[in-house]
């Protein structure tokens, strides 16, 4: 049993965890919270966004804590000024190519990117340059995709492929042109999507959301009131639809 345990130090705390544990998980066991963005437990563990970076003594550069496994004698620091500044830069870069219309976004208040920006005091976007522009796909009866809010975390892709075994969406192109797309860049209504919506549940931002029909309902309430008046007078029934 002893051989299966690894000893390390995180933010000055001596801890013992099972071999094969990630730094992120080890920190959690010691009640230390490390911020994440692309990470989705058991589904998307790819070390893509670099929000979870930490410093490891004796190492050049940062370690990506959501995928890096602990090692015997490791000394980890999760919130040095270097780490905090690097995370702020990462966020700055992501936001620099994000359609920031938070006031009118369905996810405002429940957006993981917005929460991190607040937490890391991103008050200004330093990097200004070209911004990717895509058409919104709202042709299916269920799902709307707004690529300009996509941060390429791949949580939706992993959910569709691994959890549901469908693979209706995947990443295409490289570098600045990377985006999540479908076969032949078709609308979700024309591909093998089942409209289960698990991708929406996985999305940290407003890039994926349901097709809103609340205004239709409210409109009908107003109109049906009118209808019900006439229905009442003709049928004489007290019910109103």
């Amino acid at each position, binding site marked *: 049993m002893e051989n299966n345990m690894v000893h390390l130090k995180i933010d000055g705390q001596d801890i013992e965890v099972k071999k094969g544990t990630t730094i992120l998980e080890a920190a959690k066991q010691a009640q230390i919270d490390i911020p*994440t*963005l692309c*990470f*989705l*437990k058991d589904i998307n563990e790819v070390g893509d966004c670099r929000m979870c970076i930490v410093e490891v003594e004796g190492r050049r550069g940062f370690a990506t804590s959501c995928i890096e496994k602990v090692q015997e004698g490791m000394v980890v620091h999760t919130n040095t000024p270097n780490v905090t500044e690097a995370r702020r830069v990462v966020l700055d870069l992501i936001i620099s190519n994000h359609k920031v219309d938070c006031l009118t976004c*369905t*996810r405002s208040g*429940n957006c*993981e990117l917005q*929460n991190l920006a607040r937490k890391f005091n991103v008050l200004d976007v330093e990097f200004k340059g070209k911004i990717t522009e895509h058409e919104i796909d709202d042709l*299916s*009866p*269920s*799902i709307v995709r707004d690529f300009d809010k996509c941060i390429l975390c791949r*949580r939706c892709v992993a959910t569709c492929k*691994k*959890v*549901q*075994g*469908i693979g209706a969406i995947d990443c295409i192109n490289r570098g600045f042109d990377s985006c999540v797309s479908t*076969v*032949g860049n*078709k609308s979700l*209504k*024309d*591909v*093998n999507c*089942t*409209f*289960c*919506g*698990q*991708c*929406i*549940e996985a*999305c*940290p931002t407003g890039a994926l959301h*349901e*097709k*809103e*029909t*609340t205004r*239709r*309902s*409210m409109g*009908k*309430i*107003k109109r*049906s*009131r009118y*209808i*019900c008046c006439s*229905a009442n007078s003709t*049928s004489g*029934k007290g*019910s*109103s*639809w």
Partner: protein
Amino acid sequence: MQTAPAVRVALGEEFGMKIGSNVTGQMITALKRLGFDRVFDTNTGADFTIMEEANEFVERLKNNYNLPMITSCSPGWVKYIEMNYPELLPHLSSCKSPHEMFGALLKSYYAKKEGIDPSKMYVVSVMPCIAKKFERQRLEMKNNGLYDVDNVITTRELARMIKQANIDFVELEDSKFDDPMGEATGSAAIFGTTGGVMEAALRTAQDTLTGKDLEKIEFEQVRGGDGIKRATLNIAGKEIKVVAASGLSNAKIILEEIKSGKADYQFVEIMACPGGCVMGGGQPIKSSKIRSEVDVRKLRADSLYSIDEKSHIRKSHENPILKKIYEEYLEKPGSYRAEKLLHTTYQKREKYNI
């Protein structure tokens, strides 16, 4: 307006309440305040689904026909089998999903009883699901030229409507669903979790097969969060093999077993979303952090099981409203009128339109 079982144990989360809080009463009050004239319980529709599905299952079992029978109330799952395994479509139960059944009954039985012109009714379903938005528009979901359901909104959308109307949800008093279609059973409540539809149908099927009012109604074997739950049950002296799967990767495993002839089950429940409707694509979104620290599925599902336990009536066929509507209007499960209103057909569907 009608509301699905899984909505009532999740809606509160959008207003800062604990995960799994049962907010049925407050939800009804909020819907009334929003201006909906009648608020009904989709659970009553679920009771009809169980009656029809249990009847269909008993018939298939007697005649050893198209077994195993697979449930059909998850529209994402139905679209999946239509696209990927059209050759297995005869195994699918012909039952419409609960809210579609209920919509069809509202625009026929209820409209007639209340003297309302069905073309002037506007039926909205609040669902934990976004595939229901697609299901609603299927041409098979029409009767006399009218869609059974006119609009589907998700749990999240309802929360937004309540916020928009400036209603303080947490402080609302409780209300009750409207009569005469307001009472539902415990069986219907557990429709919202994986294994629940099967458990509900088995409660009715075992009474039908034995002709008795059996007390053993909890089927622990099909509860819990596993993606695939297999069980062998003894019902009316017969050994019945069942399996409940949730998440489409797990559905695929079961379908491959059926396709290759390895499967020896008689009854299969499949839900597209992992964990069933409580974890549906229209439910409140939980951050990565919450998902890794809390078992959201369990909290919401436990709340549904506790609604079941507290229910006076826990078997669908004992619901007095159903008895009444079958007596007055539908005759019996599987009758001509029931087939017309409550059952549907499926079609092979191309995966890609290119």
